């Protein structure tokens, strides 16, 4: 795996040096131009300029929910990923059940399930007087985190399994417990190896957060639906929404590429 990544970065570097005419990122240039046109059209029109405030609010919420949900998913995913490599059959079975269910159900259904089943149930049990039900932010975070924890668990699992058995044997032979071996030897190496994959899942989650508009969370897509679509020029409006997601994804994928390069040219 690491050999592949190294080969990849080497050719990337070659490309960077001799930015040949045929391979220049024209698609990026085209995007930029289209974006500027859209943006200009919006700014030059009174009605659309007012929509910008909603869009700014939407983006903020999109980012906030994604970051919060991702943080939760990183932790829950790690626990479930550890369960997936556990020798204890009960823990393994529970973790596998979770992963298979969450990956087999569409995220939109998980979102509705969180909104209409889990949250009312928590409210009931803890007698919060529907406080949670009204707090759609928490619902959104829980739904995204539960769904993505399953994907992240599989990423962790693959990383853990990619660490050679000799590493944990060396650790055990020094007297480290199973837990210490995981904590100090296997996990640090595994996480380093899967950082790019974890990053890609964050991008995927950011895009999937658009599904939360279905339960009325006022993130970016929600404003697209309510404000932009209601106005006359849906073409421009939806373009703006799409472009904003695109910019976020592209920026993040640059970060992931940078991490990829660092980990593969690192000290292994």
């Amino acid at each position, binding site marked *: 795996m690491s050999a592949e990544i190294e080969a990849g970065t080497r050719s990337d570097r070659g490309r960077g040096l001799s930015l040949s005419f045929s391979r220049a990122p024209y698609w990026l240039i085209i995007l930029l131009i289209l974006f500027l046109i859209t943006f200009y059209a919006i700014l030059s029109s009174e009605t659309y300029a007012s929509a910008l405030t909603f869009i700014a609010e939407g983006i903020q919420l999109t980012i906030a929910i994604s970051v919060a949900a991702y943080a939760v998913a990183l932790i829950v995913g790690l626990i479930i990923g550890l369960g997936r490599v556990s020798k204890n059959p009960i823990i393994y079975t529970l973790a596998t059940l979770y992963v298979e269910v969450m990956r087999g159900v569409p995220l939109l259904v998980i979102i509705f399930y969180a909104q209409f089943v889990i949250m009312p149930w928590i409210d009931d049990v803890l007698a919060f007087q529907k406080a949670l039900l009204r707090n759609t932010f928490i619902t959104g975070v829980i739904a995204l985190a539960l769904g993505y924890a399953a994907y992240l668990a599989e990423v962790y699992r693959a990383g853990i399994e990619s660490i050679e058995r000799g590493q944990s044997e*060396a650790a055990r032979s020094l007297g480290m417990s199973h837990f210490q071996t995981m904590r100090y030897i296997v996990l640090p190496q595994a996480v380093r190896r899967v950082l790019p994959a974890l990053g890609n899942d964050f991008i995927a989650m950011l895009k999937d957060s658009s599904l939360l508009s279905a339960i009325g969370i006022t993130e970016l897509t929600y404003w697209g639906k309510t404000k932009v679509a209601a106005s006359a020029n849906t073409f421009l409006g939806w373009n703006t929404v799409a472009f904003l997601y695109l910019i976020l994804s592209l920026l993040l994928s640059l970060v992931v590429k940078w991490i990829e390069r660092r980990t593969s040219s690192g000290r292994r």
Partner: protein
Amino acid sequence: MMQGITKRFGKLVALDNVDLEVRRGEVLMIIGPSGSGKSTLLRCINHLEVPDKGRIVIDGVELNSKSANINKVRAEVGMVFQRFELFPHLTVLENITLAQRIVRGRSQQEAERIARQLLEKVGIPEKAGSYPAQLSGGQQQRVAIARALAMQPKIMLFDEPTSALDPEMIKEVLDVMLDLAREGMTMVVVSHEMGFARAASNRIVFMDQGRIVEMGDPGVFFTNPQHERTRAFLSKILH
């Protein structure tokens, strides 16, 4: 000491009723063809492989018994692997101090002091801050030996410690092992380095197909092997 050790992998019998006693301060060499069970035998001694049958007693502690804390026992048994198995994400110094701190409970300072002392001993004090990937194979194996020694083990196990090394690096590792032997460390060494066997070992064990075929002191063993299989094997590796 081990008694009646049997280990199977599926149908394959890797160790067939092996009895072996290692005395304190002794250097025991194990030789034998590939697949004869040498590694499995070593790995049973610190329970990286759990035998199907038999008893293993280390310094009065029986490994199979419920009361034995396997992690405690392993801390007393140092192991050096063919492929070094240094931790690539840690510096040389961290490789040697980690287990001292989290297993032995030593302070960072104390662990570092011991680590630097051992790096001195294996001849690479200047590499403390390097990462394993920046070292040659011979240097890595010496760090691996230092890492095991830092736990102050009662016995050291070596599984073909020089067979992954380029010829010019073999000597630097063997020299470290020779020093250890002279200091009276109890050692079990799987290796076909006959020079080391002659210079340092007290007894040689020849294994074939999961059994101990012959055991003897090096003088007699090389000049006058008792079994036909031993003779055939020796004639192969001595040339």
